[in-house]
């Protein structure tokens, strides 16, 4: 055996030197946490153990500030036979039919994407894909929800193109279609952009995998890339602390580097191994690397684990045991394999040119023991790392300014009054950063690989076929609205949930499950914790009401620079099922002579709206009302009308209201629209209010009565607005104004590239 030249801090050394001063504070641990580690071990931790506890007990891994609130999801989740795996797994799994299950999850990679936009975003995509593989599924699509600072801020020109390049490069090379998402700009995200990535995968129900390291004597295999120095301290340092205002701390070495080619091989090898029944347990290596994978698989199993760390293939020289344990090198998976099948596993990996190395065995000692060249550097109870981290009951306080903000209503702001002013407002809004065409971004993503993408960007939801024989498929939407959540986190979170739910419903799909990514400021700020608690409660209550469970997700705290936190930004992913994707409802205007109508009620709700932000830089008042009963009726109606093929098109009304929905439908379809607003309606309010629960529908000729009666029988108000007309050039708003297609396209298209100086 190789003898080691450098002195390693072993368990024996730790026993002999109990008073050695250790850098627990530098690693982000609190004094009482350090003392607890000493109690658990009955001695001081070794350097490797200290590194492992600091990582596993970090905010990112332990959810120590959020855990007491996230419990609500489990408590309030509606029971559904569809849910095959839920919170606590790598990703939630839901049954689609008797044979097929789908797994999906959204996760943040915010801090790395600010430090190193391309690699930060790329590895965010890579990480979420491995979560999907770890459940036993073939990843079939990705989506992304992005938030940046002001579009004309110089740093946005650094961050945005890098993030988009990273998402595109990784997704395109690994071969996954990007089926949509959202991009928003707001100065509150200037120093803290949000990069939330979602992936979805499909599997036969029988292929569901477990992360348990069970079966004494089973072999622990590390599959994939070599382990290097990249990403050491990524989660404990980057994702669990606030950026300093000076910006002097150089966190660059902490961002990992992605290799989508290796990830593609990982997908193929893992699926081959699962299909051949060669794997007992599997866990991906992401944040916290081997530390997390070893402790979680061992803790989920029934015994212990012994690992010989010098067997881990290394990319860099001179790595010490704690470096190897903490490395966040990408594109690695941990497999638990029956010894009789280990050779076949190694051979199949080799066939694909992928590295696979046996590094340890499952034991019955109840301890996770890690040796390095024969010296024991870790000897801990695995549950103490994975499951028994600290739990904080952080102080909560309602922000002082809330009452003041509530009375500062956008409904009192000066509005355009003449037809010419309103007409110009339609164009100005269409050209504004949050509403304009996003194809500069989405064209950098492959959307058609796999040949199953039925709807992608710019549709309200992505639709993917799962089975070519039956036509069964899924719809997914990813939505958030930080402004509404800033005004009222409980209802703001529910508005995001309602929007994602409705976006899925407008394709004709039936919503069945939720994944959420909760982006907030520092949990050490009681006002932020209040926002967090309110938002989580809003989502949990909302999902209970809608009858769809939260299946998993991710919390990202510390999106804060100095004292300035981002708007609370819960991003909600909703998954729906379509029995036959051929019957999905697209975006557009149908054919000449089709009826354009609005389902839902338009109130005077402008607070938190895009109009208030664009035209007045205003954020105040209370957000639009949310009515989940109404949303359920609407979803039921749309899925019924999709089945009977009684709608030619549908489009959710959200940011920018009816005006923006018309702009998008006209531009996308190439058709014109003749619109007559209801009698007595104030044109400005009707066009720009952001009242929730509204859908623009296009009804084929001859179906008007049937659709009207389907609405009335469900108590849903429907208002005819006009007709589709190929001969109308753009938008004709009778008695008010016309806007030509050329004007619409000139306002709406090409804005992102132009604003970024391209």
């Amino acid at each position, binding site marked *: 055996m190789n003898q080691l030249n450098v002195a390693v801090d072993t368990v024996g050394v730790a026993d002999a030197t109990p008073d050695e001063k250790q850098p627990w504070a530098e690693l982000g641990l609190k004094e009482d946490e350090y003392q607890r580690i000493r109690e658990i071990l009955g001695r001081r931790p070794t350097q490797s153990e200290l590194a492992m506890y600091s990582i596993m007990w970090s905010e990112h891994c332990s959810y120590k500030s959020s855990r007491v609130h996230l419990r609500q999801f489990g408590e309030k989740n509606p029971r559904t036979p569809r849910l095959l795996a839920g919170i606590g797994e790598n990703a939630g799994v839901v049954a689609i039919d008797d044979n097929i299950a789908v797994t999906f999850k959204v996760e943040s990679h915010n801090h790395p994407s600010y430090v190193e936009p391309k690699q930060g975003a790329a590895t965010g995509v890579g990480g979420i894909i491995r979560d999907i593989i770890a459940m036993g599924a073939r990843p079939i699509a990705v989506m992304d929800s992005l938030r940046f600072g002001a579009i004309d801020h110089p740093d946005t020109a650094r961050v945005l193109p890098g993030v988009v390049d990273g998402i595109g490069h990784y997704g*395109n090379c690994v071969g996954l279609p990007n089926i949509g998402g959202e991009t928003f700009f707001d100065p509150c995200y200037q120093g803290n952009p949000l990069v939330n990535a979602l992936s979805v995968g499909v599997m036969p129900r029988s292929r569901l995998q477990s992360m348990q390291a069970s079966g004494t004597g089973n072999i622990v295999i590390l599959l994939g890339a070599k382990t290097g120095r990249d990403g050491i301290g990524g989660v404990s340092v980057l994702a669990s602390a606030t950026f300093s205002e000076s910006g002097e701390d150089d966190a660059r070495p902490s961002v990992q580097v992605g290799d*989508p*080619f290796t990830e593609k091989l990982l997908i193929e090898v893992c699926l081959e191994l699962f299909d051949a029944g060669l794997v007992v347990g599997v866990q991906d290596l992401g944040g916290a690397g081997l530390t997390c994978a070893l402790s979680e698989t061992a803790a989920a199993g029934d015994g212990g684990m012994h690992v010989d760390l010098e067997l881990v293939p290394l990319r860099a020289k001179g790595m010490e045991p704690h470096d190897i344990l903490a490395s966040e090198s990408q594109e690695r998976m941990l497999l638990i394999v029956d010894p009789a099948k280990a050779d076949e596993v190694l051979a199949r990996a080799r066939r*694909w*040119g992928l590295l696979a190395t046996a590094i340890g065995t499952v034991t019955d000692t109840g301890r996770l023991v890690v040796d390095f060249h024969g010296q024991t550097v870790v000897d801990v109870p695995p549950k103490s790392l994975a499951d028994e981290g600290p739990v904080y009951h952080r102080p909560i306080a309602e922000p002082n300014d809330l009452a003041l903000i509530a009375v500062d209503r956008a409904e009192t702001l000066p509005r355009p009054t003449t037809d010419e002013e309103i007409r110009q407002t339609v164009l100005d809004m269409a050209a504004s950063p949050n509403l304009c065409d996003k194809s500069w971004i989405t*064209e950098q993503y492959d*959307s*058609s690989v796999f*040949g199953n*993408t039925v709807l992608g960007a710019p549709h309200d939801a992505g639709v993917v076929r799962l089975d070519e024989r039956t036509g069964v498929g899924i719809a997914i939407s990813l939505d958030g609205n930080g402004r509404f959540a800033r005004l009222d986190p409980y209802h703001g979170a529910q508005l995001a949930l309602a929007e994602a739910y409705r976006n899925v419903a407008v394709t004709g799909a039936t919503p069945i499950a939720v994944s959420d990514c909760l982006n907030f400021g520092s949990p050490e700020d009681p006002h932020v914790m209040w926002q967090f608690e309110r938002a989580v409660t809003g989502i949990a209550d909302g999902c209970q009401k809608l009858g769809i469970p939260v299946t998993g997700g991710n919390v990202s705290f510390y999106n804060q620079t100095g004292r300035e936190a981002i708007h609370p930004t819960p991003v909600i992913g909703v998954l729906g099922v379509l029995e036959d994707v051929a019957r999905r409802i697209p975006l557009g205007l149908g054919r000449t002579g089709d009826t354009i109508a609005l389902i839902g009620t338009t109130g005077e709700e402008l607070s938190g709206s895009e109009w208030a932000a664009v035209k007045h830089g205003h954020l105040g008042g209370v957000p639009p009302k949310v009515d989940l009963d109404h949303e359920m009726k609407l979803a039921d109606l749309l899925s019924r009308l999709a089945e009977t093929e009684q709608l030619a098109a549908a489009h959710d009304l959200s940011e920018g209201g009816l005006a923006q929905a018309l702009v998008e439908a006209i531009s996308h379809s190439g058709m014109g629209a003749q619109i007559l607003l209801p009698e007595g309606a104030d044109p400005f309010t009707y066009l720009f209010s952001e009242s929730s629960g509204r859908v623009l529908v296009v009804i084929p000729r001859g179906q008007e009565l049937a659709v009207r009666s389907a609405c009335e029988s469900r108590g849903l108000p429907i208002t005819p607005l006009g007709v589709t007309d190929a001969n109308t050039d753009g938008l004709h708003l009778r008695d008010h104004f016309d806007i030509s297609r050329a004007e619409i396209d000139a306002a709406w298209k090409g804005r992102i590239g132009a604003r970024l100086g391209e």
Partner: protein
Amino acid sequence: MSARIGIVTFPGSLDDRDAARAAYLAGAEPVALWHDDAHIHGVDAVYLPGGFSYGDALRCGAIARFSQVMETVKAAAAQGMPVLGVCNGFQVLCESHLLPGALVRNAHLRYRNRPARLRVETTRTAWTNAYAPDAEVVMPAKHGEGRYVADEATLDALEQNGRVVFRYLDNPNGSMRDIAGIANEAGNVVGLMPHPEHAVEALTGPSTDGLGMIASVLAHLSEGARR
């Protein structure tokens, strides 16, 4: 028995399953071929699909040309077997010198995914004989390195010998002379950047124009069988 089209999987191939679907939908029998297996299992034609073979190490397609399967494919192509390379497969054909020229970074330097309008410039190849002369077709073009370049003499020769197979109507990447696809002299080897396999169903693609390429090779093969 329907014709057998071999579809090569390199490490990093992404569109192999989609190419198989296209072959199947057009009435051919797809056969999986493996990059380091020199045996091509008696197939009648070969389809090199898109993706990032070997992670695009060195240059796109540069490593794939040295694979076991490409040795056999090169020999078979010389004997007249129809070979199609799409996107990364086109890059492999150029790197393998089965087709002249090269595919370099898009002039605008970004990966771009748009439905591309193409004109079929010649129907006298194994892969385009089923199209109407000068037909306009739509297939997705999506790549970061798809700008076709060659020296003037090569370009002139391609034009004069009717070896420009597809031309972009809205050049998306700065390709010389708007070239989207070319053929070898015999017309049995064709490479193009846009993806026929992603234009095979109205439900999922911008058109079903891609089916014409498989229909062409089937017609070509049955023609050969009759002779």
